[in-house]
């Protein structure tokens, strides 16, 4: 009888059930989408912040002091120590390798550029543009195109295996060269594939594939420094602790948290004779911006959850209030308060489950859509969230119905049946 009552109620009162179900679906949709966005926003904004540039730099351990003014190195190119290019793929072998979004080695070389018998000294910077590398069997592409996204090239980016170069914007203007021209660099005729504009010191430099710079310098495999772009967690007091002072489990926890410090520590471990450090301008501020945006979206998600809980409660209260006559009839026929309440609660649970499931699916699609239209990447809702969302839907539906059900079962059947309320 109980099952039949519930079943018939769904079969016969389609309009009401659809209305209440729609409210629950909508509420759960909004909740799922917002939870999805809120859990993923940190990662998404972190990736956007990577457009500001690398946040870690790896240098040789026994390096002499930099002599750099305005982004131009005054140090003799052969001075100081170098890193070995062959060690670079090991960056993708560290514990947090999935957090490394890219890296770019740099090797500045002083070269003479000849034009109509005029000689001029310029800096040639060897680097990767979008180089295919392998760590074990895992292939990946890295270079300045991913770590320095603000570098704009008119013309074409050179191939990493080619002998083409990019000319900095201001240098090209001084020389009167354009893309497609040929320049004499260090006694070699090289093709200019494009003109580079960065707004920085590179505008006065020549950018070349790393192998070419090594050849000119006469040091195969040499790299001056490596810029690494990594997704990090904002540092806190624990992150700032010196790993040497930590022991056992605490050290493991520090090591296995993606602080800028611990990733730098792992980079220095992976590359022999190297020293890795966070670029504070980028990494320190990242944390602040990230915390603010995450906090904002978290608070807004709370507001969204509250609003959807309210919408579900309102819809449930309305549907139950409309069924006073039915309650009166049941009570007149001898049903106890408990029976009436359990029928309503069973119906509410069923509605919450159906609406919750539909809402979860729609909400996941919505989060996916938001991810694609705003961030051009996927926001995925972990399936683990489904039971949690369903539980929340049932609880909210119960809470929303409870007051209305209590009032409904407390009614005197006589008044209810005569419609005098």
């Amino acid at each position, binding site marked *: 009888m109980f099952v039949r009552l519930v079943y018939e109620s769904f079969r016969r009162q389609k309009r009401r059930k659809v*209305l209440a179900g729609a*409210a629950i679906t*909508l509420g759960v949709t909004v909740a799922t*989408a*917002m939870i999805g*966005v809120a859990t993923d*926003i940190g990662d998404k904004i972190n990736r*956007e*912040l990577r*457009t*500001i*540039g690398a946040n870690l*730099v790896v240098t040789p351990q026994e390096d002499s*002091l*930099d*002599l*750099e*003014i*305005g982004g131009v190195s*005054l140090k003799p190119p052969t001075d100081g120590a170098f890193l070995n290019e062959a060690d670079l793929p090991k960056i993708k072998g560290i514990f947090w390798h999935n957090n490394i979004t890219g890296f770019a080695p740099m090797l500045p070389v002083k070269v003479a550029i000849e034009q109509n018998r005029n000689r001029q000294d310029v800096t040639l910077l060897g680097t990767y543009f979008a180089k295919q590398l392998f760590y074990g069997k895992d292939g990946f592409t890295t270079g300045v195109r991913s770590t*320095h*996204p*603000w570098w704009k090239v008119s013309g074409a980016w050179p191939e990493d295996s080619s002998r083409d170069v990019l000319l900095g914007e201001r240098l090209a203007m001084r020389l009167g060269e354009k893309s497609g021209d040929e320049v004499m660099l260090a006694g070699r005729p090289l093709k200019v594939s494009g003109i580079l504009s*960065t*707004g*920085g010191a590179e505008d006065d430099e020549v950018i070349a594939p790393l192998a070419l710079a090594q050849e000119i310098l006469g040091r195969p495999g040499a790299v001056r420094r490596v810029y690494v772009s990594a997704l990090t967690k904002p540092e806190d007091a624990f992150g700032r602790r010196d790993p040497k002072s930590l022991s056992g489990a605490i050290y493991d926890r520090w090591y296995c948290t993606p602080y800028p410090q611990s990733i730098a520590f792992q980079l220095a471990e992976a590359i022999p004779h190297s020293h890795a*450090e966070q*670029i*504070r*301008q*980028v990494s*320190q*501020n990242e944390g*602040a*911006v990230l915390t*603010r*945006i995450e*906090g*904002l*979206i978290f*608070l*807004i*998600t709370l*507001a*969204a959850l509250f*609003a959807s809980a*309210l*919408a579900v409660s*309102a*819809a449930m*209260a*309305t549907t139950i*209030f*409309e069924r006073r*006559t039915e309650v009166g009839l049941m009570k007149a026929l001898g049903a106890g308060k408990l029976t009436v309440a359990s029928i309503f609660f069973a119906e509410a649970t069923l509605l919450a489950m159906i609406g919750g499931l539909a809402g979860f699916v729609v909400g996941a699609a919505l989060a996916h859509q*938001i991810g694609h*239209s*705003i*961030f051009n990447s996927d926001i995925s809702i972990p399936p683990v969230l489904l039971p949690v969302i369903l539980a929340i839907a049932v609880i909210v539906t119960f809470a929303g119905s409870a007051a209305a059900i209590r009032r409904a079962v407390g009614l005197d059947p006589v008044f209810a049946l005569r*419609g005098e309320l």
Partner: protein
Amino acid sequence: MSAPMSHSGRDLAASRARSPHTSMFLRMLVRAAVLRRGRAASALFAMVVAAAVATAMLNLYVDVQAKLRREFRNYGANIIVVGRDGASLPPDALARVDSVLAGRGIAAPFALVVARTGDGQPIVVAGADFERVKQLDKWWSVSNWPSEIPTLAAKDAARMGHPALIGVRALPEVAPKNQAFDLSFQRKTLHVSPAGTVQTGAAEDSRIYISLADFVAWTGVQPSTIEIAASGSPEEVASTMKQVTQAIPSGDVRPVRQIMEGEARVLGKTQSTLLAAAALIILTAALCVLSTLMGWVFDRRRDFAIMKALGASGRLLSGFFAAEAAVLGATGALIGFVVGIGIAAWIGRVNFHAPVMPRLSVLPVVLAGSMAVTLLSAILPISLLRRVQPAVILRGE
């Protein structure tokens, strides 16, 4: 509120003819709310919550850019002025930049030379205005800022050494025991004593920073770089850049493109996310109001039927329910606006440590939206009920 009994029948009829329903209309409006306190209150509550959430979201949406821009200014300079081909800038360049900025940003001058240490090693020495650098480059990790002691006589300064900030990589090379040391530049020496260290992870780590006054007195070189953190929207920054270019014709003014582009990207994405969230939340809140109010109006179909049976016209009835909805919508919107401003201010304080300014421009939007939703939720059930005979409703069928 009842019609005065002392009037003669003709007067009463005449006054009724002039204002046929006004007093009755008002009375019904007020009594409907008072007598059914519970349901009216729950409808009003839904309205207040919806209006509050909408107000808070709109306020945040408008204000969040300004808040986040302030965070981005911690990245330091977004404009750099350098002398053409490494030349120094005119001595009054900083004053000109300051007058262009007029408080909307901060500028810091830097002068750089390659000097030699006692054992002949080259090292970059920079002159900087420490007070300005402290505000501009907040990410510098400095163990102790050198304090400038103006009262110190030149003789004493020469003996004790000019206070200097030493880069962490330079420190073991120049002052392993943190002792005072000599720097020479074009045969002029300067005695400096380490006051603290600076760590940034970039070129600053290999440099020595001394105060600009000491630097100019020692080398005679004027600042060649001014870093500017201009606040405001991209358009304001662009106009600041143009003005700086005009103010210092001998300088090369460049935007720090990675900071500007990164800022624009992150702000754009955050605001789009906020917009999507606001749309979802406002939609949910509006539907909550819609369902509550429709239930309320639907519940009163007996009132409706009685009024109709007593001869009220369809237009009058619609007008009555619409007026009721409008009053509810306006009251709810006003209370909700105040609550919403409070929520936005609270979020601002908790998250950004600065209150979100109340925007009165949001009020008409919220008011109009609330009225539209309430009117819709009153008109919808009425148009359904109008087609039904009052007798059917009164018999409870």
